[in-house]
């Protein structure tokens, strides 16, 4: 996907251009369908999710022009969010927000700046600084849309251990990206 071409097509879609919508679907559909399929692991559900993804893209294209970030990342986020919502609706997992976040010894304070910008380092470099199994867990959570419980089962560790792995990994990644 050429970022600029895709961004241009999204801009035209924002103006209600249906031919641009077809072109956008043809160029990005296979990638976004792959995301739905990988997370939902069911062709019928992935197909349903993909329809909702493009309906959402049509409706939200106007908000892209004022959003920051790359066009392909924006599209992928819509596909991932829709798929993860469908997955969590089908297989509920425990709410986490009430649990105590055990973040002691989490490392240096991340900088206060939250402006989206080009990070000094790429995520790949920072992933290499994590312990190998934790890096795999982070990536698998993202790519497959796995829950904490599923990750704990796959790695053969207690649920709380997996929570700590991922939360500390996130803070280490943040610290590394801002270093």
């Amino acid at each position, binding site marked *: 996907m050429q970022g600029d071409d895709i*961004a241009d097509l999204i*801009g*035209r879609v*924002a*103006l*209600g*251009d*249906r031919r641009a919508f*077809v072109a956008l679907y043809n160029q990005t*559909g*296979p*990638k976004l*369908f*792959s995301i739905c*399929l*990988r*997370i939902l692991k069911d*062709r019928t559900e992935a*197909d349903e999710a*993909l*329809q909702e993804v493009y*309906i959402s893209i049509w409706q939200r294209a*106007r908000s*892209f*022009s*004022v959003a*920051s*970030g*790359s066009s*392909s*990342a924006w599209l992928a*986020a819509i596909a991932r969010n829709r798929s993860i*919502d469908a997955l*969590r609706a089908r297989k509920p*997992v*425990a*709410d*986490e*927000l009430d649990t105590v*976040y055990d*973040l002691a010894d*989490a490392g240096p*304070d*991340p900088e206060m700046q*939250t402006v*989206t910008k080009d*990070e000094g380092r790429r*995520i*790949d470099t920072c992933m290499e600084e994590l312990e190998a199994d934790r890096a795999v867990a982070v*990536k698998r*959570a*993202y*790519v497959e849309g*796995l829950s*904490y419980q599923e990750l704990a089962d796959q790695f053969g560790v207690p649920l709380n251990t997996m929570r700590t792995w*991922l939360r500390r990994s*996130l803070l280490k*990644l*943040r610290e590394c*990206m801002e270093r």
Partner: protein
Amino acid sequence: MTSPDKSKGDRSRDEVLAGEYVLGVLSLQDRRVVEERMRHDRPFAAIVSRWETNLSSFNDEYEAAAPNRETFKQIEARLFGDGQRPASFSQGLWNSAVFWRSLSFACIVVAVSAVIFASGVVPEPQGPAPLVASLSGQNSTINLLASYELQSGRLKIVPVAAGKPEEKSLELWLVPGSGMTRSLGVFQPGESGELVIPADLRSQVADGATLAVSLEPFGGSPTGQATGPVIASGPLHRP
């Protein structure tokens, strides 16, 4: 002022929560809580957005997979109704969110007028507040503020920061809540930034519609639809 330790803890917690949201490990209910917070807490939304950008290189893991042949037809059917034909005017109006919003607004105006009449207070003779839209674009050197006076049909555009002059024209488009995009005219550089909206389009310039500006060949689009990049767009709303 919170203590540095507490501030640090909150900050770390937000980073983790945003990261968990983007990874996708949260429950459905927690995802809704996070999204609700993103709507009201811009710094937090920026943290989420940064994680989305940071982790987006993981998207390389997803290989392409061909969707079903019928999928796009179903998407179009769900978005635009049956078939490829644009809806007829009456259907379009009937199904138009703008129409119904305008109607609701008209009802509110009637209701408010009735209250004012009943209370015996005579309002200042002034028209309704103009509709305004702040138009901005990604990496754009131009931001525009549009305001539209309902009664006179005068639409005023103020460039907030203009880019280098080129042999191009800026054309303003109206994207109604539903229906075809229509040209509202071409801006003449150096003038007051006002466009008078053609009378037959005024009913469509309403809350819920979107204004957009595209970069067109000098003099405006040759086709009647935008041909150049959309440099800015934004929804109309009542301030």
